């Protein structure tokens, strides 16, 4: 089936989501980097860094350098609290590159990590991520960072320094890890599910918002017959089966709406 036929078959919701992801990639990432260029930058490593605010203690330089990153994180978490993880599922350009890139990899050779309980691994990783700087054993912010490697890959054809970075050991290792956990994984969200600290923070806020009764992806248990179709399409491996009905884990759901489109019985909706 050609790409155009597959695109035509997509629902309006999916088309809008992919269009927003593509727009975010163009706005935030090289070669255009339209928004960062207003601040004299081309990549996420600087004012726009979403991770660096987790470094402890926050020196004046870090606070100043990450001002836009801190503001962006604030907006992301506020949207998540009230509406769900729209940043991760609809806007994040890094997750977008990973998810869209994974569509180029044949399904047969993709790695299915969905059998691993991603939230457990994610929060084990996140705990060390937060504790390491406090304990004085180093920071993981820039370590194998997905926000660093993707812009380098996209800028490599036009920027010699980025191409050179990919040929270094750290560049190659980061690329290999991003490929293995991201593009090559089923759904293309392996890196987001296991290692992204922004995603880990966002998921926690998502759960708190859900507990307080804000709108999230929900399954109508009466209508669900447990066919498992939603489970196959979920890029975040957030759906499991309990008592012959689908169950959505708010710790993993990115509110992409793929399950909603795929459900043959219309049992999934975004609501309270």
């Amino acid at each position, binding site marked *: 089936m050609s790409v155009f036929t597959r695109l035509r078959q997509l629902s309006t919701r999916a088309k809008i989501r992919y269009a927003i992801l593509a727009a975010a990639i163009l706005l935030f990432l090289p070669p255009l980097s339209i928004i960062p260029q207003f601040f004299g930058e081309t990549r996420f490593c600087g004012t726009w860094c979403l991770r660096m605010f987790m470094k402890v203690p926050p020196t004046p330089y870090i606070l100043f350098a990450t001002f836009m990153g801190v503001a962006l994180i604030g907006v992301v978490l506020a949207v998540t609290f009230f509406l769900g993880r729209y940043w991760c599922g609809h806007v994040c350009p890094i997750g977008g590159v990973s998810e869209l890139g994974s569509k180029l990899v044949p399904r047969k050779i993709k*790695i299915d*990590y*969905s*059998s*691993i*309980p991603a939230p*457990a*691994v*994610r*929060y*084990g*990783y*996140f*705990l*060390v*991520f937060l504790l*390491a700087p406090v304990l004085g*054993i*180093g*920071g*993981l912010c*820039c*370590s*194998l*960072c997905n926000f*660093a490697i993707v812009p380098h890959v996209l800028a490599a054809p036009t920027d010699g320094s980025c191409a050179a970075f990919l040929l*270094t*050991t*750290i560049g190659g*290792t*980061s690329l*290999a*890890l991003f490929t*293995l*956990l991201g593009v090559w994984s089923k759904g293309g969200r392996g890196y987001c599910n*296991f*290692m992204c600290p922004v995603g880990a923070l966002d998921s926690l806020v998502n759960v708190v918002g859900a507990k307080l009764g804000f709108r999230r992806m929900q399954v109508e248990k009466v209508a669900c017959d*447990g*066919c*498992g*179709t939603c*489970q*196959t399409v979920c890029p975040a491996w957030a759906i*499991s*089966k*309990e008592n012959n009905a689908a169950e959505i884990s708010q710790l993993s759901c990115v509110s992409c709406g793929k399950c909603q489109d795929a459900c043959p019985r219309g049992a999934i909706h975004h609501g309270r």
Partner: protein
Amino acid sequence: MADRLRSAPEPMSLKGKLLFGVMGAAAAATSLLASSCAARCSGCMGCLTGGAGIAGVLLGAKIAHTIRGRLSNTQEEGNQTRRTSYEHDPEST
């Protein structure tokens, strides 16, 4: 369909979740080996070790989980076969 897709047993116990949490922490610990390398490389190959560590932990976890799922499926099938043969064998009673 979903049963065929998920080879691993569900739901996972708290102990199992904690085990995977420890695996995540181990992945982060190996990631520490790679910290600060992007800024200054001293040729220690810590990043390579860190990356290989993370990939190893996750792929290892996946392999272990798949094997565990297959073993439990085989065990279930074995139990079902025994039960069926017992029910249909008149001499066994």
